[in-house]
């Protein structure tokens, strides 16, 4: 690409970003409500129909996870990280059963978060606060992953002008975050939904064009597979199919990710802002088709082996830049500008949605519980400030922790959020578990999950940074995702403790719901 082309790319990128900012601020007027009310600011007044709630939940499908993290690891490790495809296929089936029920429970009792239900159901404010904090903490690495993705795009773009783009990239990131914080503050979830529509439109265009053009330019997948080197991390054998040693790792990753998605506060927030259960079902049912683009993007991790100039760029800027490097190398600059902006706001918008849901939890399920006299106006105002705070905590996160692979951040978030499954999913259906069982099960799941992650990275191996979330058994399982092991321990303890309390007869029965 010529020097002029680089300026063209940046010009398109900046123009579209200006439009994006305009939309973000304008959206506070969309289906106007009283934005000083928390339900209005955080749930857009529960007025979203099939398409908007589809965009909002779909916003979750095309994030830095899809554009950056998954292709990065397919490029580095091959077929096993294609697990994201069965994950999106399965998670929406689970959501079709669980989420309409949660919506009904929430509507009937005027809950705004899943933690409202947990607090009420188990009749324990402490358990509610624990689950709220778990949700807040689990979102942080997920937001940090979004920032990594944005950084990857900026690195490829600015790397054409500066020999060492690190500092200028960081400055650009901070500026983007200040702008984001400003319009999330004024527009709330409305800002996120409207900008999610723009984001998905750009991304749709990008995915379709790139999927058709790039394989043709490269000369097909056969050539790409032939270019896969034989190294310790990846070889044609682990790129073409899944080696049998990794089958359990693949299944445990996809199944646990599928269970985890709808435990995240931001996903539940998206569901609760729908206007009816019927709309939730229809929009959820359509999402696996949307996931086909995700499958294609994952394949970029393979395709790049057929594109020498993109491969050279990844060698320079790191594997996190697989998708932006391929786009830069294979498409005209003006189109790369559109695609880069799509990927960039593909990190920004989800980061905003996630921070809103964290703020929501902190205000409603922690502060409000401690200070019950909080009036609704103060509640909404606090949430707005918290959402700004969380964005900058996540930003600080990436300046402090640098994992070897960005995806591992999200997988650690998964291990954490899965520990809320007994409280939220089982709590929605059954009154059998009591608060002690759920609480102690949670504690065991958290401790073992964190410890196994530490052990796998720094005891069994001596990785320089976070590099894996698999636990390796010599026999008979091979590799298993730590989230699965920790969740199983959590469930067993929850059942055993509840059983003991019932035998002794001192367990506080949980409320019927």
């Amino acid at each position, binding site marked *: 690409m010529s020097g002029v082309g680089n300026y063209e790319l940046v010009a398109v990128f900046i123009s579209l970003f200006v439009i994006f900012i305009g939309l973000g601020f304008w959206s506070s007027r969309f289906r106007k409500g009283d934005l000083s009310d928390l339900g209005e600011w955080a749930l857009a007044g529960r007025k979203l129909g099939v398409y908007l709630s589809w965009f909002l939940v779909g916003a979750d499908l095309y994030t830095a996870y899809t554009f950056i993290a998954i292709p990065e690891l397919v490029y580095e490790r091959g077929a096993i990280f294609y697990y994201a495809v069965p994950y999106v296929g399965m998670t929406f089936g689970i959501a079709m059963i669980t989420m309409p029920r949660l919506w009904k429970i929430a509507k009937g009792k005027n809950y705004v978060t899943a933690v409202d239900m947990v607090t009420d159901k188990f009749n324990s404010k402490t358990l509610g606060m624990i689950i709220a904090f778990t949700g807040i903490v689990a979102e942080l690495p997920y937001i940090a992953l979004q920032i990594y993705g944005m950084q990857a795009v900026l690195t490829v773009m600015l790397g054409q002008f500066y020999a060492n783009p690190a500092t200028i990239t960081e400055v650009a990131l901070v500026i983007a975050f200040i702008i984001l914080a400003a319009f999330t503050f004024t527009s709330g979830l409305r800002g996120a939904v409207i900008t999610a529509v723009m984001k998905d439109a750009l991304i749709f265009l990008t995915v379709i064009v790139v999927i058709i053009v790039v394989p043709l330019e490269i000369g097909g997948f056969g050539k*790409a597979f032939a270019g896969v080197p034989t190294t310790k991390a990846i070889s044609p054998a682990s790129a073409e199919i899944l080696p049998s040693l990794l089958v359990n790792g693949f299944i445990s990753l996809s*199944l646990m990710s599928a269970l985890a998605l709808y435990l995240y506060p931001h996903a539940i927030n998206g569901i609760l802002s729908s206007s009816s259960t019927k709309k939730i079902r*229809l929009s959820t049912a359509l999402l696996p088709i949307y996931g086909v683009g995700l499958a*294609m993007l994952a394949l970029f991790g393979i395709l790049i082996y057929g594109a020498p100039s993109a491969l050279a760029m990844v060698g320079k800027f790191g594997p996190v830049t697989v998708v932006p490097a391929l786009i830069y190398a294979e498409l005209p600059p003006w189109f790369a500008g559109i695609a880069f902006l799509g990927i960039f706001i593909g990190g920004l918008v989800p980061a905003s949605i996630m921070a809103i849901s964290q703020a929501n939890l902190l205000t409603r399920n922690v502060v409000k519980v401690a200070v019950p006299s909080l009036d609704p106006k103060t509640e909404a105002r606090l949430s707005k400030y918290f959402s700004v705070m969380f964005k900058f905590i996540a930003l600080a996160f990436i300046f402090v922790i640098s994992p070897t692979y960005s995806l591992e951040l999200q997988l650690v978030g998964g291990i954490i959020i899965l520990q809320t499954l007994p409280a939220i999913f089982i709590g929605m259906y059954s009154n059998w578990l009591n608060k002690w069982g759920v609480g102690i099960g949670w504690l065991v799941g958290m401790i073992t999950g964190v410890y196994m992650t530490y052990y796998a990275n720094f005891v069994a191996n001596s990785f320089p940074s976070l590099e894996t979330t698999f636990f390796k058994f010599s026999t008979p399982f091979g590799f298993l995702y730590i989230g699965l092991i920790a969740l199983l321990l959590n469930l067993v303890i929850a059942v055993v403790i509840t059983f003991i309390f019932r035998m002794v007869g001192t367990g506080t029965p949980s409320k019927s719901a």
Partner: protein
Amino acid sequence: MTKDSNVNDLSLETKGTTIEKVIVAILLLVPIAVFSATPLYDSKGPELFGLTFFYWFQAAWLVVTSVFYLMAAMLLNRMEGGN
């Protein structure tokens, strides 16, 4: 939800006949079962545009999955009744 709830139209009881419930369960479980049966599709051939079966089968199965889910959604929505 407790019986004293005054929002009657938000009953959590699943309406519909047993047959309808079984059909919904099948429509939701088949896609998930197939995705979970990884060894079934973990093979090189038949290839499509140079892509091994492992990759293109799962991508194609996403489309089939949506069709199954959509049928389940329509059935569930009918079972729920109302508007």
